[in-house]
């Protein structure tokens, strides 16, 4: 029964409104993932935390004004405008405190988010003392309330998200330049201050529109988690941005469809947890930077070090005590069970010794080049240097060493 409902939500056959909310959330999360990628590359991931918290006083103030004026505060455009205004003020303060005082950006973010949020809470207690209708709608903005989303609201969110995606596509190259080399951008005649402002305004737009979907505390997650997850899969910035958009959309899709399975399941947290699951998969299994891949690479390196050291010890007739080294040597048939080298092992030991001498000579002759070769001494020298270079080194090997 539950699986069936989920399947219908996944295939967009659970009713028009659910489908619209799903598409709206997907678009929004895609936009958030894209903006978030640029912000992450600019190393300001937590600025969105300050922005989202500082929407609260604006929201509450707009609610208060609309409530006193019209009797019901739930006018989405007015609320979003209020949220955007106070978020802009908060953003400006973060920027100014970071630039003009010696406080770090972390302190600026922390101070703005706590103060604005606190003032928002004070305003909410004011609203609670007045008899304005729709108060419960306001608290929905804290953690999101997608279930009660109106058709017009979903449409507004979808439209804004599309606009944002277009804006990001238009400015993507400028923003990338800003993120990777702000100094270079400046020499190319870009006004980096204005570009930074543009990026933060786009971030603010995503956060404000996202309020209704995930709530103001969780919207931060949409701008941070998909980009971080995307970073694991690629080193190419445009691919990372696209991937972050894709992962964001996927989180929105999974989260909204899951929340429609049962009455009362909150959408915002489910979207965030879906995003976290995607992050976890990337963190563990990405072939380049994933934990599993790094573990395997570490094991490979360790085996190679042990094997080489074991062979060198064999060549010098030194006893070997290390368990792993013995195991590796034995498995390759270099030593017998009692620890005595086999003929093949002796040959391999001679090769290893010869190569070690070649590397040592190379390091002496070209110390600068040797620094840049990763694990230079471990890779077979034939893979790193050309045959000619090796010949030259061989010729230079001191005869005494060769004769030994």
């Amino acid at each position, binding site marked *: 029964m539950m699986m069936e409902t989920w399947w219908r939500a996944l295939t967009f056959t659970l009713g028009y409104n659910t489908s619209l909310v799903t598409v709206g959330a997907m678009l929004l999360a895609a936009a958030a993932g894209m903006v978030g990628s640029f912000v992450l590359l600019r190393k300001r991931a937590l600025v969105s935390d300050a922005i989202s918290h500082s929407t609260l006083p604006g929201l509450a103030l707009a609610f208060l004004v609309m409530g006193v004026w019209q009797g019901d505060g739930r006018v989405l455009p007015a609320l979003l405008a209020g949220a955007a205004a106070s978020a802009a003020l908060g953003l400006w303060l973060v920027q100014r405190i970071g630039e003009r005082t010696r406080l770090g950006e972390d*302190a600026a973010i922390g101070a703005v988010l706590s*103060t604005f949020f606190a003032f928002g809470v004070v305003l909410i207690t004011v609203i609670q003392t007045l008899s304005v209708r729709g108060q419960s709608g306001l608290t929905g903005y804290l953690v999101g309330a997608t279930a009660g989303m109106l058709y017009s609201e979903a449409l507004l969110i979808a439209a804004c998200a599309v606009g944002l995606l277009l804006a990001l596509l238009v400015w993507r190259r400028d923003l990338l330049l800003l993120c990777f080399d702000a100094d270079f951008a400046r020499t190319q005649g870009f006004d980096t201050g204005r570009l930074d402002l543009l990026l933060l305004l786009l971030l603010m737009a995503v956060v404000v529109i996202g309020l209704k979907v995930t709530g103001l505390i969780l919207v931060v997650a949409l701008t941070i988690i998909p980009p971080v997850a995307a970073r694991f899969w690629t080193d190419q910035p445009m691919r990372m941005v696209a991937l972050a958009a894709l992962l964001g959309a996927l989180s929105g899709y999974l989260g909204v469809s899951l929340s429609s399975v049962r009455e009362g399941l909150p959408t915002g*947290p489910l979207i965030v947890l879906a995003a976290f699951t995607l992050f976890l998969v990337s*963190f563990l299994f990405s072939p380049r930077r994933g934990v599993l891949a790094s573990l395997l690479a570490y094991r490979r390196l360790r085996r190679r070090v042990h094997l080489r050291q074991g062979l060198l010890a064999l060549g010098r007739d030194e006893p070997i005590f290390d368990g792993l080294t013995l195991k590796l040597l034995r498995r390759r048939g270099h030593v017998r069970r009692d620890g005595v080298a086999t003929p093949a092992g002796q040959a391999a030991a001679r090769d290893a010794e010869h190569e070690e001498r070649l590397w040592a000579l190379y390091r002496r002759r070209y110390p600068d080049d040797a620094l840049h070769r990763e694990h230079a001494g471990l890779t077979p020298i034939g893979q790193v240097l050309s045959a000619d270079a090796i010949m030259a080194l061989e010729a230079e090997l001191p005869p005494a060493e060769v004769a030994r």
Partner: protein
Amino acid sequence: MNEFMMFSLVPLTIAIIISMTCALLGNFLVLRRQSLIGDAISHVALPGIVVSFLITGTLASLAMMLGAGVAALVTVALIELIRRLGRVEGSAAMGVVFTSLFALGVLLLEWHGAGGVHLDVEHALYGNLESLIWFEGSGLAALFDPVALADLPPQLGRAAWVGLMVVGFVVVMRRPLVLASFDPDFAASLQARPALVDLLLVTLVAVAAIAAFEAVGSIIVIAMFVCPAAAARLMTNRLGAQIAWSQLFAVLAAVVGYLLAGEAPRWLGFEASLSAAGMIATVAGLILLAACLFGPCRARTGSAQRA
């Protein structure tokens, strides 16, 4: 006067103690550019409390504090894990962890309908400072009456203990703490164990956050970890003076904020009172704003002026 004793003395005292405690630790967080760790920890206290409720079935303070404390340590561990193993930037790793855990907390809360049992998101944010009434506090005499004193809300005692613990920590550990805050590499070379100091500091931040959480909500906590210390940082170049300033600002914010929350609506002709926790945090922010505008050492190159 009696009314003050009954309704305001305890909340005000708790607010002052917690503000001073958080501000004291905040000095070191601001110096190390770790101000947001307080934010992260107060977000993850929610899932900690919900999980501990689901396991133990009670909302007893000890269970709640244990749950939130475990959640805080798990958070710090996860952040470090993601930062190191995944080579993710520190603040991004923090963002991933605390938002996900907070989402988990909200989901569990809604799923189990635990919202009904005096445990909801708003409560966690706002705290319930106003409800800490000392029923026996009927006059000045009650301050010396053991029977009446026994009736003091238990949150007061808890806040005081945590405050003493934090003061003790700072006094005992002051040398390694200062060293590790200013120059971790140098501290490591002196074998002052900066990593251990780090861990202890974060643990105490968690303990302070949780003790405050129950009484005053998480807003005050986040604000007090950052605002007074940041404002104090703009007043002086000396650590000792900075700590003193931060304590002064914390007390000022607590007292002024509490009074404003209670009295301001009456000046405007309303009967109700406002969120005290929210007001205290707001005042703390205003103090920081003033310091940003007029603080003698606010400039980026702090060497120009000397206090």
